[in-house]
């Protein structure tokens, strides 16, 4: 595609830049905001999300922490207690397991324990997701751990526009918000887009219909949004009209958008890449079941990672993760139920 003079390609921004802008804008507007993480300052982050931030806002507000996830998460709590807004970067979301107790037991419950006296405006964010040969510890989508731990909001943007708007909302939220950034999307060319010049915020808890359809609802988030969109195209070729819902925010969850869609299509497939058992896909199936069982013409199904770790070698990895073909196939099964 050739670039025309009146649509300069340079204005398009990738997912990573969108995140960076959101953080930078909030750091600029909110002098009470601190960033902490491993290698986020001098290096600018393993993926570069915080590049330039330390030079601009100073080493005391953009802290290169020791490799101590528990101390990082715990000190974020202390900073919040002192009135700060804190952005915590996990170098990979997989390493969140090392700060787990401080997050689920200290941070997530602080507001609850104090009957509202203390709030915890903390954003925990980091690169996540498989399909990239990252193997067991650089591929995780472990959101279910935190969705089962009351007191943490969880979001997962899939476009640059959403990434920026949701990140800004997260950084203004008085509660802990965990952001699954899809590392495969950071620099993906296909999804680059122009972002508004003026400031914008996307409130947490609003899903987005990425494609309208009438025969089946595909509920998903993260990079599976693109798999579902591809599958919807293939389904269209076979005469099946699929609606694709990008949840964007898992907690709070936009049940209304899901229910309205199901009322229209009467069929649902939920797709995510986390392990199956007790994953969020099953949760959506359960909710659909609770909220609109009588509208279902077929069982609400899910396509997820198998209950395995994410293996390294490509054939292994692809084997355990949902694919476009599987989405098409399962959708057809549901439609023909």
């Amino acid at each position, binding site marked *: 595609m050739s670039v025309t003079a009146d649509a300069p390609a340079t204005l398009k921004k990738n997912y990573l830049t969108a995140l960076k802008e959101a953080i930078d804008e909030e750091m600029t507007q909110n002098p009470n905001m601190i960033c902490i993480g491993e290698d986020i300052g001098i290096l600018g982050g393993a993926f570069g999300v915080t590049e330039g931030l330390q030079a601009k806002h100073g080493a005391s507000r953009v802290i290169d922490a020791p490799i101590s996830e528990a*101390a990082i998460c715990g000190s974020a709590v202390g900073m919040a207690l002192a009135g700060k807004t804190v952005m915590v970067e996990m170098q990979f979301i997989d390493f969140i397991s090392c700060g787990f107790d*401080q997050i689920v037991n200290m941070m997530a419950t602080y507001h609850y324990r104090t009957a509202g006296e203390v709030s915890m*405006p903390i954003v925990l964010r980091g690169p996540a997701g498989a399909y990239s040969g990252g193997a067991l510890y650089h591929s995780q989508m472990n959101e279910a751990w935190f969705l089962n731990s009351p007191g943490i909001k969880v979001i997962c943007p899939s476009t640059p526009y959403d990434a920026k708007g949701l990140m800004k909302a997260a950084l203004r939220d008085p*509660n802990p918000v965990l952001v699954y950034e899809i590392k495969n999307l950071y620099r993906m060319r296909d999804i680059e887009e122009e972002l508004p010049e003026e400031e914008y915020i996307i409130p947490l808890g609003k899903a987005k219909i990425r494609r309208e359809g009438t025969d089946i609802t595909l509920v998903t988030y993260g990079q599976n949004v693109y798999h579902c969109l591809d599958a919807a195209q293939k389904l269209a070729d076979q005469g099946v009209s699929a609606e694709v819902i990008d949840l964007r925010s898992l907690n709070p969850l936009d049940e209304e958008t899901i229910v309205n869609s199901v009322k229209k299509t009467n069929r649902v497939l939920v797709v995510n890449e986390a392990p199956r058992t007790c994953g969020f896909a099953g949760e959506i199936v359960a909710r659909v079941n609770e909220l609109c069982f009588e509208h279902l013409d077929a069982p609400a199904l899910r396509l997820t990672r198998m209950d395995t770790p994410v293996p390294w070698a490509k054939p292994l990895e692809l084997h355990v993760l949902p694919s476009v073909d599987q989405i098409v196939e399962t959708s057809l099964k549901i439609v023909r139920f």
Partner: protein
Amino acid sequence: MPAQKSAPPKTASPARPSDLLTKEEHLELLKHLYLARYFDVRLIKEKRRGRLTGTLYSSHNQEAILAGTLYALKSTDWISPIHRDMPAFFMKDLRGKWGQDDRIAMTVEEVCSQVWGRSGSPGRARDNWSHIGSKSGHIIHSTSMLAGTIPVAAGLAYANKLDGGDAVVVTYNGEGSTAQGVFHEAINFAAVHKLPVITIIENNQWAYGTPTHLEYPLEDFARRADGYGIPGWVADGQDVFDVYDKMVAAVEYARTGAGPSIIECKTFRAYGHGDHDDDRAARYRPTDDVNKGRERDPIAVCKRILVEKGMMTQAEAAQYAAEGKGAPQTKDEDFPPEVVEYLKRGVEYAIKSPLPDAAEGAMWVFRETN
């Protein structure tokens, strides 16, 4: 350049800091010991009378640690007490403020309401026992996870320093809790950034049913400081003045920006881990050790020093004989009446305070708006 030596620095003061305290202050420290002791005695009695349920983690015999450390702090400083430190919650900021409870971090009414699990507690009985705190009163709310507030303290200290504050943040920990990974991560972080964080180790020789030699290879838990090149003081936890002296040094060290430090206070757990453990503890702890460990009652030690310093007569010292007794043997008459009165007020308030409404159980999971 970070400090390369871990030897405790000399304090700037020529004399022992405690020698600079007035007679009133000396006597006030003794009163704080009485207060802490009576809190414990009172709760045990309330429980025996069936007016209280739940587990009590006694601070009996360890009161000098709380009194001595808290006496060296300003109200802008933060503390984080744990299960064995209940009196700390109402003793913070008490120095020179007896009878002016409104200026105190947390009132005895609030603390007792917490013990009783009533709506009068700041957390509205959502979490139990020592899991209480106050943002305005500068007390961190702990979880049950031991050593878990040390990183919180480090973050608080970091933010406070960044804002130009001079607050010191003090966490209290049993010696057993120092084996937690988060202890290491947090102190390492605090040492790198020279944060004003003081870690008190209450070495009462036991962590529940486990003796110290199974928790740490060295005699002095203060030696943990050496791994971070920070000062590690050892205080006589039975002597409120020794604790105070070491704490003054640590506070000065912290407040002048030199960084974190550790104070190990040697003491001995008087009873079982909690009162549910009293019977078993009698079996797993050699009687001789227990007797020896309880020989030096901090109230007795304090009185002896007051008499030696000429701030109290022998007769005055003998007036309230709370020391050297178990809770059941201790009578209200063994305490100054104002101490009994003080705690009684708290207990009565708590007992009258209603339980929280059931529906509150579902509230405050998230804060609605900013």
